[in-house]
Protein backbone atom coordinates (compact mmCIF):
# COMPACT_ATOMS: atom_id res chain seq x y z
CA UNK A 1 0.00 0.00 0.00
CA UNK A 2 1.32 3.42 -0.97
CA UNK A 3 0.54 6.89 0.31
CA UNK A 4 0.40 9.76 -2.19
CA UNK A 5 0.19 13.32 -0.87
CA UNK A 6 -1.03 16.43 -2.69
CA UNK A 7 0.22 19.77 -1.32
CA UNK A 8 0.64 23.28 -2.67
CA UNK A 9 2.69 25.60 -0.47
CA UNK A 10 0.54 28.55 -1.50
CA UNK A 11 -3.15 28.19 -0.74
CA UNK A 12 -5.89 28.37 -3.35
CA UNK A 13 -3.99 26.78 -6.24
CA UNK A 14 -6.62 24.08 -6.78
CA UNK A 15 -5.11 21.32 -4.67
CA UNK A 16 -8.40 20.06 -3.24
CA UNK A 17 -10.24 20.17 -6.59
CA UNK A 18 -7.47 18.07 -8.16
CA UNK A 19 -7.35 15.64 -5.24
CA UNK A 20 -11.10 15.08 -5.53
CA UNK A 21 -10.70 14.29 -9.23
CA UNK A 22 -7.90 11.85 -8.38
CA UNK A 23 -10.25 10.18 -5.88
CA UNK A 24 -12.68 9.68 -8.76
CA UNK A 25 -9.96 8.33 -11.07
CA UNK A 26 -8.31 5.95 -8.57
CA UNK A 27 -10.14 2.66 -8.56
CA UNK A 28 -8.96 1.27 -5.26
CA UNK A 29 -7.96 4.09 -2.92
CA UNK A 30 -8.72 5.47 0.51
CA UNK A 31 -8.85 9.26 0.52
CA UNK A 32 -7.64 11.28 3.54
CA UNK A 33 -8.28 14.97 4.10
CA UNK A 34 -5.12 16.19 5.80
CA UNK A 35 -6.06 19.88 5.61
CA UNK A 36 -7.68 19.62 9.03
CA UNK A 37 -8.02 23.30 9.82
CA UNK A 38 -9.86 24.10 6.61
CA UNK A 39 -11.10 20.71 5.44
CA UNK A 40 -13.05 21.04 2.18
CA UNK A 41 -12.83 17.67 0.44
CA UNK A 42 -16.08 16.52 2.01
CA UNK A 43 -17.90 19.29 0.13
CA UNK A 44 -17.15 17.44 -3.12
CA UNK A 45 -17.21 13.83 -1.89
CA UNK A 46 -20.46 14.00 0.17
CA UNK A 47 -19.38 11.53 2.84
CA UNK A 48 -21.72 9.30 4.75
CA UNK A 49 -20.14 9.23 8.24
CA UNK A 50 -19.72 5.69 9.62
CA UNK A 51 -17.44 6.29 12.54
CA UNK A 52 -16.91 9.45 14.57
CA UNK A 53 -14.27 9.89 17.30
CA UNK A 54 -13.10 12.72 19.53
CA UNK A 55 -9.59 14.05 19.06
CA UNK A 56 -8.04 14.74 22.45
CA UNK A 57 -4.64 16.29 22.65
CA UNK A 58 -2.81 18.45 25.14
CA UNK A 59 -4.06 20.44 28.11
CA UNK A 60 -5.02 24.03 28.83
CA UNK A 61 -4.60 26.01 32.04
CA UNK A 62 -7.66 27.41 33.83
CA UNK A 63 -7.32 29.57 36.96
CA UNK A 64 -9.93 28.90 39.67
CA UNK A 65 -10.68 32.54 40.50
CA UNK A 66 -12.04 31.64 43.96
CA UNK A 67 -8.71 30.11 44.99
CA UNK A 68 -6.39 32.63 43.27
CA UNK A 69 -4.46 34.87 45.69
CA UNK A 70 -3.46 37.31 42.95
CA UNK A 71 0.31 36.95 43.38
CA UNK A 72 0.94 37.03 39.62
CA UNK A 73 3.64 34.36 39.62
CA UNK A 74 1.80 32.55 36.78
CA UNK A 75 1.75 35.66 34.56
CA UNK A 76 5.43 36.35 35.27
CA UNK A 77 6.45 32.82 34.28
CA UNK A 78 4.20 32.43 31.21
CA UNK A 79 6.25 32.88 28.03
CA UNK A 80 3.22 32.94 25.75
CA UNK A 81 1.63 36.17 27.05
CA UNK A 82 -1.41 34.08 27.92
CA UNK A 83 -2.08 35.24 31.48
CA UNK A 84 -3.35 38.68 32.46
CA UNK A 85 -4.85 40.33 35.54
CA UNK A 86 -8.61 40.08 35.92
CA UNK A 87 -11.24 41.13 38.42
CA UNK A 88 -12.93 38.45 40.50
CA UNK A 89 -16.70 38.61 40.19
CA UNK A 90 -18.25 39.06 43.60
CA UNK A 91 -15.57 40.80 45.66
CA UNK A 92 -13.71 42.62 42.86
CA UNK A 93 -10.33 41.29 44.00
CA UNK A 94 -7.42 41.30 41.56
CA UNK A 95 -6.86 37.76 40.29
CA UNK A 96 -5.31 36.27 37.15
CA UNK A 97 -6.96 34.59 34.16
CA UNK A 98 -5.72 32.55 31.21
CA UNK A 99 -6.58 33.49 27.62
CA UNK A 100 -7.38 30.07 26.14
CA UNK A 101 -6.49 31.24 22.61
CA UNK A 102 -2.91 32.02 23.71
CA UNK A 103 -2.32 29.14 26.17
CA UNK A 104 0.36 26.79 24.87
CA UNK A 105 -0.56 24.04 27.34
CA UNK A 106 2.93 23.83 28.85
CA UNK A 107 1.82 23.66 32.50
CA UNK A 108 4.45 26.07 33.85
CA UNK A 109 1.77 28.14 35.64
CA UNK A 110 0.04 25.00 36.93
CA UNK A 111 3.15 23.52 38.57
CA UNK A 112 4.42 26.83 39.92
CA UNK A 113 1.24 28.29 41.45
CA UNK A 114 1.97 28.61 45.19
CA UNK A 115 -1.64 27.82 46.13
CA UNK A 116 -2.31 25.24 43.39
CA UNK A 117 -5.22 27.33 42.05
CA UNK A 118 -4.79 26.36 38.39
CA UNK A 119 -6.52 23.38 36.77
CA UNK A 120 -5.10 21.66 33.70
CA UNK A 121 -7.87 19.75 31.92
CA UNK A 122 -7.21 17.67 28.82
CA UNK A 123 -8.46 19.37 25.67
CA UNK A 124 -10.89 18.00 23.12
CA UNK A 125 -9.39 19.62 20.02
CA UNK A 126 -11.68 18.23 17.35
CA UNK A 127 -13.19 15.09 15.86
CA UNK A 128 -12.26 12.67 13.14
CA UNK A 129 -14.41 10.51 10.91
CA UNK A 130 -14.28 7.46 8.71
CA UNK A 131 -16.91 7.78 5.98
CA UNK A 132 -18.12 6.16 2.80
CA UNK A 133 -18.26 8.12 -0.46
CA UNK A 134 -19.15 7.32 -4.07
CA UNK A 135 -15.42 6.74 -4.66
CA UNK A 136 -14.64 4.66 -1.57
CA UNK A 137 -13.66 5.44 2.01
CA UNK A 138 -12.76 8.95 3.19
CA UNK A 139 -10.97 9.68 6.47
CA UNK A 140 -11.45 13.28 7.49
CA UNK A 141 -11.41 15.51 10.54
CA UNK A 142 -12.54 18.77 11.97
CA UNK A 143 -10.27 20.73 14.24
CA UNK A 144 -12.19 22.87 16.71
CA UNK A 145 -11.92 26.59 15.96
CA UNK A 146 -8.53 27.92 17.08
CA UNK A 147 -7.46 24.56 18.52
CA UNK A 148 -3.82 23.58 18.64
CA UNK A 149 -2.11 20.39 17.60
CA UNK A 150 -3.31 20.28 14.01
CA UNK A 151 -0.09 18.39 13.11
CA UNK A 152 -1.05 15.58 15.48
CA UNK A 153 -4.52 15.40 13.97
CA UNK A 154 -3.02 15.17 10.47
CA UNK A 155 -0.88 12.23 11.64
CA UNK A 156 -3.95 10.59 13.17
CA UNK A 157 -5.98 11.00 9.95
CA UNK A 158 -3.16 9.41 7.93
CA UNK A 159 -2.81 6.56 10.41
CA UNK A 160 -6.55 5.81 10.23
CA UNK A 161 -6.50 6.03 6.42
CA UNK A 162 -3.69 3.44 6.30
CA UNK A 163 -5.58 1.19 8.72
CA UNK A 164 -8.73 1.48 6.58
CA UNK A 165 -6.73 0.68 3.43
CA UNK A 166 -5.32 -2.42 5.10
CA UNK A 167 -8.71 -3.64 6.31
CA UNK A 168 -10.34 -3.11 2.93
CA UNK A 169 -7.36 -4.32 0.92
CA UNK A 170 -6.95 -1.06 -0.95
CA UNK A 171 -3.55 -0.33 -2.39
CA UNK A 172 -3.47 3.49 -2.40
CA UNK A 173 -4.02 6.26 0.13
CA UNK A 174 -4.46 9.73 -1.40
CA UNK A 175 -3.89 12.57 1.08
CA UNK A 176 -5.10 16.14 0.51
CA UNK A 177 -2.44 18.08 2.42
CA UNK A 178 -2.54 21.47 4.13
CA UNK A 179 -0.98 24.66 2.71
CA UNK A 180 2.29 26.13 4.01
CA UNK A 181 5.54 24.48 5.05
CA UNK A 182 5.01 24.17 8.80
CA UNK A 183 4.00 21.57 11.33
CA UNK A 184 0.82 20.21 9.62
CA UNK A 185 2.54 19.91 6.22
CA UNK A 186 5.46 18.04 7.75
CA UNK A 187 2.96 15.71 9.43
CA UNK A 188 1.25 15.14 6.06
CA UNK A 189 4.48 14.40 4.19
CA UNK A 190 6.74 12.22 6.30
CA UNK A 191 7.06 8.69 4.98
CA UNK A 192 4.85 9.19 1.88
CA UNK A 193 5.65 7.36 -1.37
CA UNK A 194 5.27 10.51 -3.43
CA UNK A 195 4.15 14.12 -3.28
CA UNK A 196 2.44 16.18 -5.97
CA UNK A 197 2.84 19.93 -5.61
CA UNK A 198 0.05 21.90 -7.24
CA UNK A 199 1.23 25.37 -8.08
CA UNK A 200 0.18 28.30 -10.28
CA UNK A 201 2.25 30.53 -12.61
CA UNK A 202 2.25 33.57 -10.32
CA UNK A 203 5.17 35.17 -8.51
CA UNK A 204 3.75 33.80 -5.24
CA UNK A 205 3.24 30.32 -6.68
CA UNK A 206 6.83 30.18 -7.95
CA UNK A 207 8.22 31.46 -4.66
CA UNK A 208 6.22 29.04 -2.50
CA UNK A 209 7.01 26.10 -4.79
CA UNK A 210 10.72 26.62 -4.16
CA UNK A 211 10.11 26.34 -0.41
CA UNK A 212 7.95 23.21 -0.55
CA UNK A 213 10.38 21.52 -2.94
CA UNK A 214 13.07 22.13 -0.36
CA UNK A 215 10.80 20.51 2.21
CA UNK A 216 10.13 17.46 0.00
CA UNK A 217 13.86 17.07 -0.61
CA UNK A 218 14.55 17.42 3.11
CA UNK A 219 12.26 14.44 3.80
CA UNK A 220 13.48 12.61 0.66
CA UNK A 221 10.00 12.25 -0.86
CA UNK A 222 9.88 11.97 -4.68
CA UNK A 223 8.23 15.18 -5.87
CA UNK A 224 6.12 15.93 -8.95
CA UNK A 225 4.81 19.35 -9.98
CA UNK A 226 1.55 20.29 -11.68
CA UNK A 227 0.86 23.84 -12.87
CA UNK A 228 -2.76 24.79 -12.49
CA UNK A 229 -4.17 27.83 -14.37
CA UNK A 230 -0.98 27.67 -16.45
CA UNK A 231 -2.32 29.97 -19.18
CA UNK A 232 -2.49 32.96 -16.79
CA UNK A 233 1.21 33.38 -17.55
CA UNK A 234 2.70 30.79 -19.95
CA UNK A 235 6.22 32.22 -19.64
CA UNK A 236 6.17 31.86 -15.87
CA UNK A 237 4.80 28.33 -16.26
CA UNK A 238 7.85 27.42 -18.37
CA UNK A 239 10.14 28.94 -15.75
CA UNK A 240 8.47 26.99 -12.96
CA UNK A 241 8.92 23.69 -14.79
CA UNK A 242 12.59 24.45 -15.42
CA UNK A 243 13.10 25.30 -11.74
CA UNK A 244 11.22 22.15 -10.69
CA UNK A 245 13.47 19.95 -12.85
CA UNK A 246 16.56 21.66 -11.43
CA UNK A 247 15.32 20.82 -7.92
CA UNK A 248 14.87 17.16 -8.89
CA UNK A 249 11.08 17.23 -9.28
CA UNK A 250 9.16 15.86 -12.27
CA UNK A 251 6.77 18.21 -14.10
CA UNK A 252 3.68 16.06 -14.73
CA UNK A 253 1.41 18.42 -16.58
CA UNK A 254 -0.61 21.57 -16.77
CA UNK A 255 -4.26 22.37 -16.21
CA UNK A 256 -5.80 25.49 -17.73
CA UNK A 257 -7.59 28.39 -16.00
CA UNK A 258 -11.25 27.57 -16.41
CA UNK A 259 -14.34 28.74 -14.52
CA UNK A 260 -15.72 25.23 -15.09
CA UNK A 261 -13.72 24.18 -12.02
CA UNK A 262 -15.74 26.65 -9.90
CA UNK A 263 -18.98 25.48 -11.53
CA UNK A 264 -18.18 21.85 -10.69
CA UNK A 265 -17.47 22.85 -7.09
CA UNK A 266 -20.83 24.63 -6.88
CA UNK A 267 -22.53 21.43 -8.06
CA UNK A 268 -20.66 19.40 -5.45
CA UNK A 269 -18.91 17.42 -8.20
CA UNK A 270 -15.34 16.73 -9.22
CA UNK A 271 -14.17 18.16 -12.54
CA UNK A 272 -13.79 14.68 -14.05
CA UNK A 273 -17.50 14.11 -13.34
CA UNK A 274 -18.84 17.56 -14.25
CA UNK A 275 -16.65 18.17 -17.28
CA UNK A 276 -16.00 19.61 -19.79
CA UNK A 277 -14.12 16.59 -21.14
CA UNK A 278 -11.23 18.72 -22.41
CA UNK A 279 -10.51 19.98 -18.86
CA UNK A 280 -11.08 16.52 -17.35
CA UNK A 281 -8.59 15.07 -19.85
CA UNK A 282 -5.90 17.49 -18.65
CA UNK A 283 -6.45 16.27 -15.09
CA UNK A 284 -6.44 12.60 -16.17
CA UNK A 285 -3.12 13.18 -17.89
CA UNK A 286 -1.61 14.67 -14.71
CA UNK A 287 -2.83 11.71 -12.64
CA UNK A 288 -1.48 9.19 -15.15
CA UNK A 289 1.93 10.84 -15.45
CA UNK A 290 2.28 11.23 -11.69
CA UNK A 291 1.64 7.53 -11.14
CA UNK A 292 4.05 6.68 -13.97
CA UNK A 293 6.87 8.66 -12.33
CA UNK A 294 6.36 6.53 -9.22
CA UNK A 295 6.02 3.26 -11.20
CA UNK A 296 2.51 2.73 -9.80
CA UNK A 297 0.14 0.94 -12.22
CA UNK A 298 -2.48 3.33 -13.62
CA UNK A 299 -6.00 2.03 -12.98
CA UNK A 300 -8.04 1.21 -16.08
CA UNK A 301 -10.84 3.65 -16.88
CA UNK A 302 -14.26 2.09 -16.23
Amino acid sequence: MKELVVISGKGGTGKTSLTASFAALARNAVVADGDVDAADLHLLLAPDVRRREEFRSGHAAVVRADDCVGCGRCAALCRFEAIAPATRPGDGARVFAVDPSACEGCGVCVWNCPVRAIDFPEQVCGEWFVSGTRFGPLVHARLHPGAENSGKLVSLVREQARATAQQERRDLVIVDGPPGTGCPVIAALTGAAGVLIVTEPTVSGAHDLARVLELANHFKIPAAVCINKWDLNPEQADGIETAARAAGAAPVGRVRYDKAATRAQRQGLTVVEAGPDSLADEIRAVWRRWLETLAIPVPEAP
Partner: protein
Amino acid sequence: MSAAPSIAIASGKGGTGKTTVAIHLAATLLFHRRSVQYLDCDVEEPNGHLFLKPKIDAVESVGIPVPVVDAARCIACGKCAGVCEFNAIAMLKKPLVFPELCHGCGACALVCPVGAIRETPRAVGVAETGRAGCIAFAQGRLNVGEPMAPPLIRAVKARRDPEAVALYDSPPGTSCSVVATVRGADFVVLVTEPTPFGLHDLDLAVATLRPMGRPLGVVVNRADEDRRVQDYCQAENLPVLAELPDDRRVAETYARGELLFDRLPDWRGRFEDLWARIEERL
Protein backbone atom coordinates in the same frame (compact mmCIF):
# COMPACT_ATOMS: atom_id res chain seq x y z
CA MET B 1 -4.06 51.76 23.16
CA SER B 2 -1.44 52.63 20.57
CA ALA B 3 -1.53 55.76 18.43
CA ALA B 4 -2.35 54.13 15.09
CA PRO B 5 -4.72 51.19 14.48
CA SER B 6 -3.67 47.67 13.54
CA ILE B 7 -5.63 45.65 10.99
CA ALA B 8 -5.22 41.93 10.40
CA ILE B 9 -6.03 40.54 6.95
CA ALA B 10 -6.98 36.89 7.26
CA SER B 11 -9.02 34.22 5.48
CA GLY B 12 -10.05 30.66 6.10
CA LYS B 13 -9.28 29.36 2.64
CA GLY B 14 -5.90 30.04 1.09
CA GLY B 15 -5.48 31.89 -2.20
CA THR B 16 -8.53 34.12 -1.79
CA GLY B 17 -6.54 37.36 -2.09
CA LYS B 18 -5.29 38.28 1.40
CA THR B 19 -1.95 39.56 0.18
CA THR B 20 -3.59 41.43 -2.72
CA VAL B 21 -5.93 43.20 -0.30
CA ALA B 22 -3.14 43.94 2.21
CA ILE B 23 -0.71 45.50 -0.26
CA HIS B 24 -3.40 47.53 -2.01
CA LEU B 25 -4.64 48.81 1.33
CA ALA B 26 -1.05 49.83 2.09
CA ALA B 27 -0.86 51.72 -1.22
CA THR B 28 -4.26 53.33 -0.56
CA LEU B 29 -3.12 54.54 2.87
CA LEU B 30 -0.12 56.15 1.22
CA PHE B 31 -2.42 58.10 -1.12
CA HIS B 32 -4.00 59.44 2.06
CA ARG B 33 -0.55 60.38 3.36
CA ARG B 34 -0.96 58.04 6.26
CA SER B 35 2.06 56.40 7.77
CA VAL B 36 1.69 52.66 7.07
CA GLN B 37 3.54 49.47 7.91
CA TYR B 38 2.99 46.12 6.21
CA LEU B 39 3.89 43.11 8.41
CA ASP B 40 3.90 39.70 6.71
CA CYS B 41 2.90 37.19 9.41
CA ASP B 42 2.47 34.36 6.87
CA VAL B 43 5.93 33.19 7.92
CA GLU B 44 5.63 29.79 6.21
CA GLU B 45 5.04 31.38 2.81
CA PRO B 46 5.63 35.15 2.95
CA ASN B 47 4.64 36.70 -0.38
CA GLY B 48 4.11 40.41 0.23
CA HIS B 49 7.77 41.14 -0.55
CA LEU B 50 7.27 39.86 -4.11
CA PHE B 51 4.93 42.77 -4.77
CA LEU B 52 6.35 45.49 -2.51
CA LYS B 53 10.00 44.68 -3.34
CA PRO B 54 11.31 46.20 -0.09
CA LYS B 55 14.87 47.13 0.72
CA ILE B 56 15.71 45.11 3.83
CA ASP B 57 17.80 46.97 6.43
CA ALA B 58 17.89 44.47 9.26
CA VAL B 59 17.77 40.69 9.45
CA GLU B 60 17.58 39.20 12.93
CA SER B 61 17.58 35.56 13.89
CA VAL B 62 14.59 34.53 16.00
CA GLY B 63 14.93 31.59 18.31
CA ILE B 64 13.13 29.83 21.08
CA PRO B 65 14.94 28.91 24.30
CA VAL B 66 15.66 25.18 24.51
CA PRO B 67 17.27 23.33 27.42
CA VAL B 68 20.86 22.19 27.66
CA VAL B 69 21.58 19.79 30.51
CA ASP B 70 24.85 20.11 32.44
CA ALA B 71 25.76 16.43 32.80
CA ALA B 72 28.17 17.12 35.69
CA ARG B 73 25.43 18.69 37.83
CA CYS B 74 22.50 16.48 36.73
CA ILE B 75 21.41 14.02 39.44
CA ALA B 76 19.18 12.11 36.99
CA CYS B 77 16.02 12.67 39.04
CA GLY B 78 13.89 12.76 35.87
CA LYS B 79 11.76 15.73 36.97
CA CYS B 80 12.50 17.65 33.75
CA ALA B 81 11.24 14.81 31.57
CA GLY B 82 8.22 14.40 33.83
CA VAL B 83 7.15 18.05 33.61
CA CYS B 84 7.59 18.43 29.82
CA GLU B 85 4.19 18.43 28.12
CA PHE B 86 5.71 18.13 24.66
CA ASN B 87 7.80 14.96 25.12
CA ALA B 88 10.90 16.98 24.31
CA ILE B 89 12.94 15.34 27.08
CA ALA B 90 13.32 11.56 27.41
CA MET B 91 14.82 10.07 30.55
CA LEU B 92 17.53 7.54 29.85
CA LYS B 93 20.48 7.34 32.24
CA LYS B 94 20.55 11.11 31.85
CA PRO B 95 17.93 13.35 30.23
CA LEU B 96 18.02 13.40 26.43
CA VAL B 97 16.65 16.60 24.81
CA PHE B 98 14.84 16.69 21.44
CA PRO B 99 15.17 20.42 20.60
CA GLU B 100 12.75 20.34 17.64
CA LEU B 101 9.91 19.20 19.93
CA CYS B 102 10.61 21.91 22.53
CA HIS B 103 8.13 24.79 22.76
CA GLY B 104 10.50 26.91 24.87
CA CYS B 105 8.23 27.15 27.92
CA GLY B 106 11.01 26.84 30.50
CA ALA B 107 9.23 24.25 32.68
CA CYS B 108 12.27 21.95 32.84
CA ALA B 109 14.69 24.66 33.97
CA LEU B 110 12.22 25.78 36.65
CA VAL B 111 11.68 22.28 38.01
CA CYS B 112 15.33 21.15 38.06
CA PRO B 113 16.30 20.96 41.76
CA VAL B 114 20.04 21.38 41.16
CA GLY B 115 20.08 24.11 38.51
CA ALA B 116 21.54 21.78 35.89
CA ILE B 117 19.45 23.14 33.00
CA ARG B 118 20.32 26.31 31.19
CA GLU B 119 18.46 27.53 28.11
CA THR B 120 20.00 28.44 24.82
CA PRO B 121 18.21 29.81 21.74
CA ARG B 122 17.41 27.52 18.84
CA ALA B 123 16.81 29.53 15.65
CA VAL B 124 13.42 28.98 14.00
CA GLY B 125 13.71 31.69 11.34
CA VAL B 126 14.50 35.32 10.74
CA ALA B 127 12.61 38.58 11.22
CA GLU B 128 13.40 41.19 8.58
CA THR B 129 12.60 44.89 8.53
CA GLY B 130 13.02 47.51 5.87
CA ARG B 131 11.12 49.89 3.63
CA ALA B 132 9.32 49.66 0.33
CA GLY B 133 9.36 53.29 -0.72
CA CYS B 134 7.23 55.02 1.91
CA ILE B 135 5.77 51.76 3.25
CA ALA B 136 7.52 50.37 6.33
CA PHE B 137 7.98 46.65 5.92
CA ALA B 138 8.49 43.67 8.24
CA GLN B 139 8.29 39.97 7.58
CA GLY B 140 9.20 36.66 9.13
CA ARG B 141 10.73 33.77 7.23
CA LEU B 142 10.39 30.45 9.00
CA ASN B 143 13.15 27.94 8.34
CA VAL B 144 11.92 25.24 5.95
CA GLY B 145 10.96 22.13 7.90
CA GLU B 146 10.49 24.14 11.09
CA PRO B 147 7.19 23.55 12.91
CA MET B 148 7.23 26.45 15.44
CA ALA B 149 5.65 29.41 13.64
CA PRO B 150 3.93 31.34 16.48
CA PRO B 151 7.14 32.56 18.22
CA LEU B 152 8.33 34.03 14.90
CA ILE B 153 4.94 35.66 14.29
CA ARG B 154 5.16 37.27 17.73
CA ALA B 155 8.66 38.50 16.86
CA VAL B 156 7.39 40.07 13.60
CA LYS B 157 4.56 41.82 15.44
CA ALA B 158 7.04 43.07 18.05
CA ARG B 159 8.65 45.04 15.20
CA ARG B 160 5.55 47.11 14.65
CA ASP B 161 5.88 50.89 14.54
CA PRO B 162 3.14 52.24 16.85
CA GLU B 163 2.97 55.49 14.86
CA ALA B 164 1.99 53.73 11.60
CA VAL B 165 -1.22 51.95 10.62
CA ALA B 166 -0.21 48.28 10.87
CA LEU B 167 -1.42 45.76 8.27
CA TYR B 168 -0.85 42.18 9.45
CA ASP B 169 -0.94 39.74 6.51
CA SER B 170 -2.07 36.48 8.14
CA PRO B 171 -1.47 32.87 7.14
CA PRO B 172 -4.56 31.02 5.86
CA GLY B 173 -6.53 28.55 7.95
CA THR B 174 -7.71 28.68 11.55
CA SER B 175 -4.68 27.33 13.41
CA CYS B 176 -2.54 28.72 16.22
CA SER B 177 -0.56 30.78 13.63
CA VAL B 178 -3.71 32.67 12.65
CA VAL B 179 -4.64 33.24 16.29
CA ALA B 180 -1.10 34.55 16.98
CA THR B 181 -1.42 36.99 14.05
CA VAL B 182 -4.89 38.30 14.83
CA ARG B 183 -4.38 38.62 18.59
CA GLY B 184 -4.43 42.26 19.65
CA ALA B 185 -5.44 43.62 16.21
CA ASP B 186 -8.01 46.41 16.28
CA PHE B 187 -9.91 45.07 13.27
CA VAL B 188 -9.90 41.86 11.21
CA VAL B 189 -10.63 41.78 7.47
CA LEU B 190 -11.59 38.29 6.25
CA VAL B 191 -11.02 37.82 2.53
CA THR B 192 -13.09 35.09 0.89
CA GLU B 193 -14.43 34.01 -2.49
CA PRO B 194 -17.95 33.02 -3.54
CA THR B 195 -17.39 29.26 -3.77
CA PRO B 196 -18.47 26.41 -1.47
CA PHE B 197 -14.85 26.10 -0.24
CA GLY B 198 -14.60 29.85 0.35
CA LEU B 199 -17.87 29.97 2.30
CA HIS B 200 -17.14 26.86 4.35
CA ASP B 201 -13.69 28.10 5.37
CA LEU B 202 -15.02 31.62 6.07
CA ASP B 203 -17.47 30.07 8.52
CA LEU B 204 -14.58 28.23 10.25
CA ALA B 205 -12.54 31.43 10.43
CA VAL B 206 -15.47 33.34 11.93
CA ALA B 207 -15.93 30.59 14.55
CA THR B 208 -12.23 30.87 15.42
CA LEU B 209 -12.02 34.65 15.53
CA ARG B 210 -15.36 35.66 17.08
CA PRO B 211 -14.43 34.45 20.58
CA MET B 212 -11.34 36.66 20.41
CA GLY B 213 -13.63 39.67 20.50
CA ARG B 214 -12.13 41.61 17.57
CA PRO B 215 -14.49 43.40 15.15
CA LEU B 216 -14.69 41.49 11.84
CA GLY B 217 -15.54 42.47 8.28
CA VAL B 218 -15.62 40.49 5.03
CA VAL B 219 -14.21 41.19 1.58
CA VAL B 220 -15.74 39.04 -1.18
CA ASN B 221 -13.05 38.66 -3.83
CA ARG B 222 -13.79 37.40 -7.36
CA ALA B 223 -17.45 38.25 -6.74
CA ASP B 224 -19.95 36.97 -9.31
CA GLU B 225 -23.61 35.99 -9.44
CA ASP B 226 -23.30 33.51 -6.55
CA ARG B 227 -24.63 35.41 -3.50
CA ARG B 228 -24.28 32.71 -0.82
CA VAL B 229 -21.37 34.41 0.94
CA GLN B 230 -23.27 37.71 1.11
CA ASP B 231 -26.36 35.90 2.42
CA TYR B 232 -24.24 34.19 5.06
CA CYS B 233 -22.75 37.54 6.13
CA GLN B 234 -26.20 39.03 6.47
CA ALA B 235 -27.41 36.10 8.58
CA GLU B 236 -24.29 36.29 10.75
CA ASN B 237 -24.48 40.08 11.03
CA LEU B 238 -21.04 40.53 9.47
CA PRO B 239 -20.43 43.65 7.38
CA VAL B 240 -19.47 43.06 3.72
CA LEU B 241 -16.77 45.72 3.30
CA ALA B 242 -16.21 45.22 -0.42
CA GLU B 243 -17.12 43.03 -3.37
CA LEU B 244 -14.19 42.87 -5.77
CA PRO B 245 -15.39 41.62 -9.15
CA ASP B 246 -14.03 38.51 -10.82
CA ASP B 247 -11.70 39.64 -13.60
CA ARG B 248 -9.15 37.56 -15.43
CA ARG B 249 -6.97 40.67 -15.93
CA VAL B 250 -6.58 40.86 -12.14
CA ALA B 251 -5.32 37.27 -12.03
CA GLU B 252 -2.86 38.01 -14.83
CA THR B 253 -1.58 41.19 -13.17
CA TYR B 254 -1.15 39.33 -9.89
CA ALA B 255 0.70 36.55 -11.71
CA ARG B 256 3.30 39.08 -12.84
CA GLY B 257 3.70 40.50 -9.34
CA GLU B 258 2.38 43.93 -10.31
CA LEU B 259 0.11 46.33 -8.44
CA LEU B 260 -3.38 46.52 -9.92
CA PHE B 261 -3.46 50.33 -9.74
CA ASP B 262 -0.81 50.62 -12.40
CA ARG B 263 -2.70 48.51 -14.95
CA LEU B 264 -6.33 48.83 -13.93
CA PRO B 265 -6.96 52.39 -12.70
CA ASP B 266 -10.60 51.70 -11.82
CA TRP B 267 -9.41 49.43 -9.01
CA ARG B 268 -8.03 52.37 -7.08
CA GLY B 269 -11.56 53.50 -6.18
CA ARG B 270 -12.50 50.03 -4.97
CA PHE B 271 -9.70 50.06 -2.39
CA GLU B 272 -10.50 53.68 -1.45
CA ASP B 273 -14.03 52.53 -0.63
CA LEU B 274 -12.75 49.51 1.28
CA TRP B 275 -10.46 51.67 3.41
CA ALA B 276 -13.33 54.09 4.10
CA ARG B 277 -15.47 51.17 5.28
CA ILE B 278 -12.71 49.91 7.58
CA GLU B 279 -11.89 53.34 8.95
CA GLU B 280 -15.49 54.08 9.96
CA ARG B 281 -15.42 50.89 12.04
CA LEU B 282 -12.20 51.63 13.92
